[in-house]
């Protein structure tokens, strides 16, 4: 695995503490956390609210809304919808706000450009 050894060497000289303290990295860290933490808390709360309703508010969940379709089924399907929506939202946020800074910092450290598959294109300067 010579390939692997080379890569370890390439980052061995990097002072990660210094990189960690740069404003660019702090900005990346802040952007990442300020999205994933509130979002994780929000969907967990929504999921447990749903579980508690199904557990303790059976009467409410059994109210028929349209034909045989009741509140419980609609709320269950809404869990699917919110899961898909959060997924889409996170992807668009990452593409816009996270990936560019991450690539920039990576580029500075490794001095390489990456192709679309993430492979290093050695020697190509931006």
């Amino acid at each position: 695995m010579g390939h692997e050894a080379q890569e370890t060497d390439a980052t061995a000289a990097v002072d990660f503490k210094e990189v960690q303290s740069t404003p660019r990295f702090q900005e990346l860290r802040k952007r990442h956390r300020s999205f994933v933490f509130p979002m994780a808390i929000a969907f967990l709360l929504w999921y447990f609210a749903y579980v508690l309703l199904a557990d303790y508010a059976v009467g409410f969940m059994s109210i028929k809304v349209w034909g045989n379709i009741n509140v419980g089924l609609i709320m269950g399907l809404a869990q699917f919808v919110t899961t898909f929506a959060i997924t889409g939202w996170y992807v668009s946020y990452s593409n816009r706000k996270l990936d560019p800074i991450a690539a920039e910092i990576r580029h500075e450290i490794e001095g390489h450009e990456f192709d679309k598959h993430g492979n290093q294109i050695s020697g190509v300067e931006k």
Partner: protein
Amino acid sequence: MTFMVPAVNVADLKETTLLNMGIFALFVAITMIIVIKASKNNKTAADYYAAGRSFTGSQNGTAIAGDYLSAASFLGITGAIAINGYDGFMYSIGFLVAWLVALLLVAELLRNTGKFTMADVLSFRLKQRPVRIAAAISTLVVCFFYLLAQMAGAGTLISLLLGISDWGGQALVIVVVGALMIMYVLIGGMKGTTWVQIIKAVLLIAGAAVMTFWVLAIYGFNLSDLLGGAVETSGNPNILNPGLQYGKSEVSKIDFMSLGLALVLGTAALPHVLMRFYTVPTAKEARKSVVWSIWLIGLFYLFTLVLGFGAAALVGADTIKGAPGGVNSAAPLLAFHLGGPLLLGFISAVAFATILAVVAGLTITAAASFAHDIYASVIAKGKADAATEVKVARRTVVVIGLLAIVGGIFANGQNVAFLVALAFAVAASANLPTIVYSLYWRKFTTQGAIWSMYGGLGSAIILIALSPVVSGAKTSMIPGANFAIFPLSNPGIVSIPLAFLLGWLGSVLDKRLEDTTKQAEMEVRSLTGVGAEKATDH
């Protein structure tokens, strides 16, 4: 709406045995050829464990869906909805929502930080040996629980699909499934295993889609009429409301919350799911994999909603319960009702393929963990070369395969969805707190990791041993004895918070400080992908 429900005669099923076996043999033959072709490039450890990191996000996402949509998902959830109605549906919601934990908090950072196993990430900035050993032990335990569930499912399934009802015959089939799985993993490594999972995911989702379309067509594409049909056949309007299974008592309500917690927090801590993130070249592809798998898995669970209520309406709960295989037979019986022997044969073959593929994925994860974390890092103290490590991994595959066969024969007949839910609870307790802390909490220490992992693992297993799952009820593993002092059948609600607490407490009380340079390195690497292993070139 009146509907003639032609009775599904279970005795007719035996006549389709040859057809089922034929379709399954065809699947094995085709996948084996692909596995052999895919294995040509297996040279390094990265090739064997991580498929040379050469899969695209969408391929890996399909393989994750293949790994995740196990027999418990397909047979178990369809059956649970058919019998328990709405309460069965809540399983699928937990299984799906859980993927957001993986997407938002774990997948990309894990891909950027590790190489092959979960332990790579957990031990990155802590003391290597103790953390690696703890992570490897919990990986092996979770994989073994999950393996048992799949192998037990194989036995149950066979009694229905192949008409083999005697213990010896079922044991023989478990041996065949185990032997096939060992061959796939030995020959194909991660690359072969991934291809088996991709093919199986496509077949499973396509099969479920056809059946869903068919059921909906019978009811004029009106979901309300389908639900009405389920109520009519079951004679119980409550099948559409929550609480049929879990609303019986206060204890069962808390049990359901415990299950919900384990499901939603367990997914992102399953070692065989985590390991799949290493088969793609970058964190961006890891993200794409999760997005792809969320769509596929979500779609599939929507299908199971239709299939479950379809089985309740068209086959009927009594016929399902009376069939060999019980609850797990809902989906195959529905297939037989709709498309006769040919569709049953196809669905049965897909169900077999499901078990085979999931078992293969679990085995390679367990083998990689043993060879990479325990053998190479602890026994050989990092001096083993990659070739020896892969050799150890291959031998481990055989050992785990044999253990799974023996375990499967003894666990035959146990409830599949239940065993899987326990594996989720163990994973969420033993692994998730340490994963989250080590990725996000600067002050996390070795002592915190050790306390959290052993505390979570130990408490989950002890609580299961003292629960009605093991003793004290008619459905227990040991129905004769009664030492069930813990009332819940799922330990998650106690063991998961306990593991989080222990991780925090262990770190706060730890007098030794961790290496801040390593912490900085891990944080920078995890967020930027600096120095992460790329795809190997061939």
